[in-house]
């Protein structure tokens, strides 16, 4: 029963009737019970907001009744008033048994009415808190639902092809909070080139993810197609790479109050020759694994992130891939992933795993690194976004 409903528990019929009348007058919907068990049944089935209970009832002690009431799981708080002769029970004893108030019998009308006013205030406060909690719960659920949809949208933007002309691929993607500031993509450009990038927008969560969507939109060949324009306008691959990141750096300059910058590896593979040209804009160093020697080497010596300084300049890293060579790109969320002892996963461990798993097929590496970093992290809830892109040059067209 909703609203302000009261229950009077006691042995004496006359007292029950008198109290009920007064409670009705104070705006309560009143029920009565002659013993503890009956009262508990009513509370369980119908629910009440206020209980007036005689210290001595038939089937159990008042203390026991109050304890059983308090231990039951209820959606709302029940305001509990003990009634008893002052000589028979000390008010402190009633309060420590779990009651909110004690009234000595015979109950004076004024005392009861003052106590009911105070109870009503508490009950109303309780109801407002319950309503607010319900609202927060609803708001939380709807935000979570939206975030799950956003996460699906982001996942759908990730590349789904794993065998492309000249290169086989795989990846790992673990957003810290549904959506990630990490993003990556790769695709063939014409017959001659293969473009790839991985980026990490400062911070993580929704704000970072929105920026990563916007950057992705700039680069994607089916929307703005910044990559193809840069290649068209620059015959030299290195110039095309630099033109792309400089363009992004101009577009994504924040103002003084917001410095939402991002780090990135952006690169182009000449599919025929295996030559790879990339720029390292503040992103952790790409790692090249040689098929022939089995050695993994970090390439490049850093570079300025994008969107941080207008005057930033960029340089390129060049390398040559031969059939079977692999390139690993990854975010700092992987290196800075901490285990339960607070140790970072780190680049040494990553390098040795890359070498250790060199003979395993690339199709297995996504799941292996996913499992590896999740084990290190100790759960599926990551502090920062973790992403990794693996490219294997096949040379086959």
């Amino acid at each position, binding site marked *: 029963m909703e609203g302000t409903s009261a229950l009077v528990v006691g042995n004496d019929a006359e007292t029950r009737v008198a109290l009920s009348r007064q409670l009705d007058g104070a705006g309560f919907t009143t029920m009565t019970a002659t013993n503890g068990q009956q009262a508990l049944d009513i509370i369980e089935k119908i629910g009440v907001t206020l209980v007036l209970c005689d210290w001595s009832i038939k089937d159990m002690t008042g203390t026991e009744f109050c304890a059983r009431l308090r231990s039951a799981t209820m959606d709302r708080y029940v305001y509990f008033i003990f009634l008893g002769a002052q000589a028979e029970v000390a008010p402190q004893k009633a309060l420590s048994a779990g009651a909110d108030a004690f009234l000595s019998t015979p109950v004076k009308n004024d005392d009861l009415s003052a106590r009911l006013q105070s109870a009503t205030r508490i009950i109303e406060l309780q109801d407002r808190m319950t309503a607010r909690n319900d609202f927060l719960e609803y708001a939380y659920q709807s935000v979570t639902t939206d975030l799950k949809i956003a996460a699906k949208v982001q996942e759908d933007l990730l590349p789904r092809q794993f065998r492309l002309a000249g290169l086989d691929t795989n990846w790992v993607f673990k957003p810290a909070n549904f959506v990630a500031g990490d993003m990556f993509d790769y695709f063939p450009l014409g017959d001659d080139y293969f473009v790839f990038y991985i980026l990490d927008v*400062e911070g993580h969560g929704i704000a970072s993810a929105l920026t990563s969507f916007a950057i992705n939109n700039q680069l994607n060949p089916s929307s703005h197609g910044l990559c193809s324009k840069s290649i068209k306008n620059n015959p030299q691959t290195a110039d095309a790479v630099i033109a792309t990141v400089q363009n992004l750096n101009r577009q994504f300059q924040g103002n003084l109050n917001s*410095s939402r910058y991002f780090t990135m590896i952006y690169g182009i593979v000449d599919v025929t020759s295996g030559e790879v040209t990339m720029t390292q804009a503040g992103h952790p160093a790409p790692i090249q694994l040689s098929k022939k020697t089995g050695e993994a080497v970090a390439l490049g010596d*850093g570079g300025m992130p994008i969107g941080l300084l207008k005057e930033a300049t960029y340089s390129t890293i060049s390398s040559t891939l031969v059939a079977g060579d692999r390139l690993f790109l990854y975010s700092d969320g992987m290196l800075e992933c901490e285990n339960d002892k607070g140790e970072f996963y780190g680049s040494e461990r990553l390098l040795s795993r890359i070498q250790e798993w060199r003979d395993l097929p690339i199709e297995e590496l996504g799941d292996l690194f996913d499992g590896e970093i999740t084990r290190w992290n100790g759960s599926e809830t990551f502090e920062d976004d973790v992403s990794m892109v693996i490219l294997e040059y096949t040379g086959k067209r």
Partner: protein
Amino acid sequence: MSFEVEIKEGIAVVAVTAGRLDASVAPELKKVVSNVIDDGTSRIMLDLQRVQFMDSSGLGAVISSFKLTGQKGEFVICNMNEAVKEIFELTHMDRLFDIYPNADEGFQKMCA
């Protein structure tokens, strides 16, 4: 407070007292530096002695603070540990700032 500010000889020494300069303290750094500048001091030394770890948000806050000091101001950094130094090197931000091994040396250079 994750920061302590001491002004001597017209130079504001902003010491980070938090062990991690990350997203949880980054906005506070910008606010502290902005207050120092509003109070009339645009020569700032950021002391990172107690910082064990800095993430991308922390780096962003340092760059924003540097931008706040403007052309006429000065912004130097001292007491970087190896992990923090690596981030500055990776992002080439070590080329942007005057970096000193300790506060005394930084202070002397700024006063010279």
